[in-house]
């Protein structure tokens, strides 16, 4: 099997799984219990949280655990809307977001909020002038992802923050960092709230984080009992939390070295497949190397995906979350419906080997030759 779909999800790391298993077995106590087993479990959970906080240079209390990026995004956007709806009902987001952001925005729109979509330039970067002009006194929230999941375009969050805060210091800045954390170095202090999830960084599925700066208040969207965090009631999933902490530590170690290695693999693929007449590389100078998006002229992305599947090679067409439709991100950047209608996303990891890339290039050639004659 050649797995090239690491941006959809990653295999859980062996050591991470080991941590999960041992914690489940040895620390099954409820961290809210007063007895020794509960206290021990709570201490372990707190140590795990502290480790994550130290890695990202934030406070322990600024971390809320969720069941994943979608829940984190819901808590961030809806929690913010509930808290500040009396102050304003205007929210800004970009055209390069994860579908979950659009689904939440549609819901908020139905509840009477107004959503603006900031433009981006041909390199995929948020248009600063447009952003500036969109921010109003009643803009309560801006949500812009750190790295676009389809094309890998990375946004300059620090500059975006400066623009937002200059126009309206009260506006809260949230960023979905799901595709950035563990791939490139991020700074949570560039934003007020940030989303990330475990299963994209070789952690377990079912655990995510919402970072919320201590100076920002939001309302919970779930109610229940729980002492650890009012935004996250209920019994904390300690084995998932501890495993996530381990995954974060492993994924952020040697992050630059890994990035350079992946960059080499990325260039190798681009060099090999850009020679085909029907292949367009959807890569701008702001794309991170872990995500390589291409468009196929005259071949359906899904057809190509299934043809690769015969060789046990796994990639995405558009993204796993929005398969079947136009690629909204490619459309937003290139404004070309044909280009956006048939895309493949090849996502790479430090686990990817050069041998796997060579084979992928070879299979790509065979399939391309076979399929390009059939259409068009």
């Amino acid at each position, binding site marked *: 099997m050649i797995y090239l779909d690491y941006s959809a999800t990653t295999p859980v790391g062996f050591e991470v799984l080991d941590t999960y298993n041992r914690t489940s077995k040895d620390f099954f106590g409820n961290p809210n219990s*007063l007895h020794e087993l509960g206290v021990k479990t709570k201490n372990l959970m707190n140590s795990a949280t502290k480790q994550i906080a130290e890695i990202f240079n934030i406070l322990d209390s600024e971390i809320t655990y969720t069941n994943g990026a979608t829940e984190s995004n819901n808590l961030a956007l809806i929690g913010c809307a509930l808290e500040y709806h009396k102050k304003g009902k205007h929210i800004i987001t970009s055209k390069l977001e994860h579908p979950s952001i659009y689904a939440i925005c549609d819901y908020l729109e139905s509840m009477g909020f107004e959503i603006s979509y900031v433009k981006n330039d041909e390199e995929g970067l948020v248009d600063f002038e447009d952003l500036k002009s969109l921010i109003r006194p009643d803009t309560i929230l801006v949500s812009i992802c750190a790295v676009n999941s389809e094309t890998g375009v990375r946004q300059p969050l620090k500059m975006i923050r400066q623009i937002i805060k200059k126009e309206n210091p009260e506006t809260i800045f949230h960023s979905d960092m799901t595709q950035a954390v563990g791939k490139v170095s991020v700074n949570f202090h560039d934003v007020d709230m940030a989303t990330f999830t475990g299963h994209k960084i070789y952690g377990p599925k079912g655990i995510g984080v919402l970072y919320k700066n201590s100076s920002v208040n939001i309302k919970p969207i779930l109610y229940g009992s729980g002492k650890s965090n009012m935004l996250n009631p209920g019994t904390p999933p300690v084995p998932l939390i501890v495993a996530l902490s*381990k995954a974060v*530590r492993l994924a952020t170690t040697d992050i630059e070295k890994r990035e350079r290695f992946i960059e080499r693999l990325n260039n190798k693929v681009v060099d090999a497949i850009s020679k085909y007449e029907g292949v367009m590389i959807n890569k701008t100078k702001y794309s991170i190397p872990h995500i390589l998006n291409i468009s196929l002229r005259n071949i359906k992305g899904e057809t190509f995906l299934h043809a690769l599947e015969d060789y046990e090679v796994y990639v995405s067409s558009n993204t796993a979350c929005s398969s079947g439709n136009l690629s909204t991100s490619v459309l937003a950047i290139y404004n070309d419906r044909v280009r956006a209608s048939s895309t493949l996303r090849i996502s790479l990891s430090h686990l990817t080997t050069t041998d796997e890339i060579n084979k992928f290039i070879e299979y790509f050639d065979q399939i391309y030759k076979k399929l390009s004659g059939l259409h068009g």
Partner: protein
Amino acid sequence: MEKIILIKYGELSTKKDNINFFLTKLRDNILVALKDMNVNVSYDLGRMFIRTDADIDEVIKRVTNVFGIHEINVGYIIESNNINEIAPYVLELLKDREFKTFKVESKRSNKKIEFTSIELSKMMGAEILKNIPDIKVQVNNPDILINIEYRKDNSLVYFEKIKGLGGYPVGTLGKGLLMLSGGIDSPVAGYMTIKRGVKIEAIYFESPPHTSIEAKNKVIKLARKLAKYNNDIILHVVNFTEIQEEIYKNIPHEYLITIMRRMMYRVSAIIAGRRKAKILINGESIGQVASQTLTSMAAINEVVRIPVIRPLACFDKLDIIDIAKKIDTYETSILPFEDCCTIFVPKHPVINPDKVKCLEYEKLIPYEEMIYKAVKGHEIIKIEEKEKKEFEDLL
């Protein structure tokens, strides 16, 4: 030119015959604070020099928590005491600093130099004015004070001063035993005693199952905060359940606290004696609660002969809280866990306990036996500033 850290002693320098004892102790304490770094610490009677290839900011951060230091400077040693050779280095050092006004202060411990200190300052000042535009000399409150010392074989340049904590090097004045509860006051009392050069150990009374493991963890956490100043700290945990239950069952409730405190003092005095601690320390403050009226203090204190130091005796609560915040114990102290002093609290504790009655009531319980048992079985925990990563294998 070599970058070094310069340590000035302050109050210490008034010690005459035994100053070397104080200085070697200070050096030891600095080395403990920097134990995981590659450093060289040398000294003379005037000050100490730290040479290191480690991160200077981190060294300074740690050294500012060492008692016995009046002032810390980042200095530069230049291998010359000729003003013309030194000037280019000084200009180089000034390049990255922003200032509009300055003052040069010179000292010459090398009296062979032909100019006086004032002349040296003037000459260096002129050189600086000539080379850096738009600045002027200002004697009072300059933006930057340029200190230059002309020494025997070299000279020393430094600028900003960082204030140290003062006090005496920990351990130079012997050992004390701190009665550490989980409250706000006792850690502050410990800190103030450490500051005067006393190395402390701490004693904590637990009453399981009336007090929880969380209460004990909280005290360990507080002890760890003090360990930062004390190099490390030994915590004696005494099981007080039997004594406390016996008191509750047999002694009139208005005297519960008085008798309980008397027992704590007795236990503490025995452990202090065994550990060669010369004093007991606690966080009592006159009038704060019923057991801290003067009559109460006298009735409680009479059971021991070891001196009891109460650094907070005359402090207002708000001032104590300020220090607790400064030394970062406050947030831990206010965590809500029951401790020995908050369980079994009588509705109306006696404010003016009678010593004779105390003795009479105490006859109702076999306290000597129970104290012997409690001291014999007590737990000793060594606590270091850096928390051992408990779950390292999982994380």
